[in-house]
């Protein structure tokens, strides 16, 4: 199984190498995005005017920087499996792979593993870029406490990603769940501004979004250096989300896959 997982990662690496400018484009785009927020952050330097930022050390750029970095993890976990199925359908390789003695789980994990690895490297790159180029202060950070947050966030959004991929298998359309979750999370979960600035009724909606807890916990451990115990509430909620969504996603995806196999829709997209 590990050889096959490695083969999927190697193939994706080989494919990535054939897109020579994609890496430079991504780097430039991210740098430009951070640069914009760096200057926007200068407008909010006074925490007396913006007390909601005080809870996050009063630095808007550091706040939004972490929001962007971790919402990337959500986007990957949510859309990776669907993206993979769509790519293999488009290349006509899905059936060729399914004809080999490779369980679909290995195939799915192999692809998702690469995307997760890539997003983790990217997140680490963002943090490095922030520290070196934008002088973001992570001197207090409790890096060890970040691991359970990353793990639980990945599991939660992977569960949602399975639901989304199952929907795609059945309909060949992007799942409304994926679109709504992506859109709502960016708006309501505190990516660009603290949840505290939202009116009460929107804050209620925000409390149903897993990314809210990811960002809250990540900011606590990376800005204030909080311990795992301090982010216990956020970790508990994320555990509940993952325990609920992961099995639900697995069951739904398996059924959708069986139905697609029965319908014969695993072949080329015409």
């Amino acid at each position: 199984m590990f050889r096959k997982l490695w083969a999927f990662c190697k193939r994706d690496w080989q494919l990535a190498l054939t897109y020579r400018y994609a890496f430079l484009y991504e780097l430039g785009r991210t740098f430009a995005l951070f640069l914009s927020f760096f200057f926007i952050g200068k407008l909010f330097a006074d925490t007396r005017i913006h007390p909601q930022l005080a809870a996050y050390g009063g630095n808007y750029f550091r706040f939004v920087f972490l929001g962007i970095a971790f919402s990337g993890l959500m986007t990957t976990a949510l859309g990776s499996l669907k993206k993979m199925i769509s790519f293999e359908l488009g290349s006509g390789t899905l059936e060729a792979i399914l004809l080999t003695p490779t369980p679909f789980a290995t195939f799915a994990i192999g692809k998702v593993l690469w995307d997760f690895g890539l997003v983790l490297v990217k997140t680490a790159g963002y943090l490095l870029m922030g520290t070196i180029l934008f002088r973001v202060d992570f001197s207090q950070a409790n890096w060890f406490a970040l691991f359970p947050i990353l793990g639980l966030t990945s599991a939660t959004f992977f569960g949602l990603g399975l639901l989304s991929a199952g929907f795609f298998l059945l309909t060949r359309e992007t799942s409304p769940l994926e679109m709504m979750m992506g859109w709502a999370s960016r708006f309501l979960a505190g990516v660009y501004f603290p949840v505290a600035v939202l009116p009460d009724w929107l804050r209620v909606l925000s409390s149903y979004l897993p990314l809210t807890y990811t960002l809250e916990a990540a900011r606590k451990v990376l800005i204030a250096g909080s311990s795992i115990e301090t982010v216990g509430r956020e970790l508990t909620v994320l555990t509940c989300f993952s325990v609920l969504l992961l099995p639900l996603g697995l069951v739904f995806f398996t059924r959708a896959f069986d139905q697609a196999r029965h319908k014969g829709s695993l072949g080329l997209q015409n």
Partner: protein
Amino acid sequence: MVNRAVEVSNVSKWFYPSRPLWVPFKAKSKIQVLSNINLEIPQGNIFALVGTNGAGKTTLFKIISTLLLPDEGEVWVNGHHHLHRPEKIRAILSFAMGGERGFYWRLSVRQNLEFFCTLYELPPRESRKKIVETARFSGLDEYLDRPYEQLSAGTRQRLGIARSLLNGAKVLLLDEPTRSLDPLSKRDVKTLLKKLSREYGKTIAFTTHDLHEAEEVADTIAILHKGQLRAVGKPDELRGTDKQSNFEETFAKFCEDRVIHSNVP
């Protein structure tokens, strides 16, 4: 079951066209693509499945290869049942799908084959050996380090066949292996098929629209029309007593709207 590479028994398949979400309560319409198919392919045989567009040829091959489940009926490949032992079937059967997709366009022939060798669970050293051997056998040695996107249609077809040989499959299913090929490339592919059967004892089943090709290469020909198997037999048997008639006429006769099952096992 002895000496039968493939046995298809009473297989039927319907497709359900997707309907818009706003008409959820409308009764589902269904299209029958295969109707009560019975078929046997002997070991080592070259078998041609001939039919018009939409006759159900690819669907039948997908069912035999376990990619698709039939609504009714059963399939055995070398004695393995399609539902009980699909993994056994995948281990001894290869299916080269038609068309120019099915490979990673930006990767080289070698990278593509290496990837599939790993999925076929070949050890790295054996993979390298197998790739060189298969490439030589299929006339692909000079293309090994060329990206797939730079290959001609004929070379891509041969690569599809080459991939189906990686796992040492005993039964090869080939969906239109000579589609859109020039006469020379067609000849190469046909020679390859004969070589695989005569020298390596592989059972080969292929679909085609080309009646002459079926007659030239195949030991047994089956005619599929509108999801029904109209006839199965040796080319001479299908022509019957009228040896002078060409195969197009024979084919047209079987495609008339009457079912002739005289040769169906």
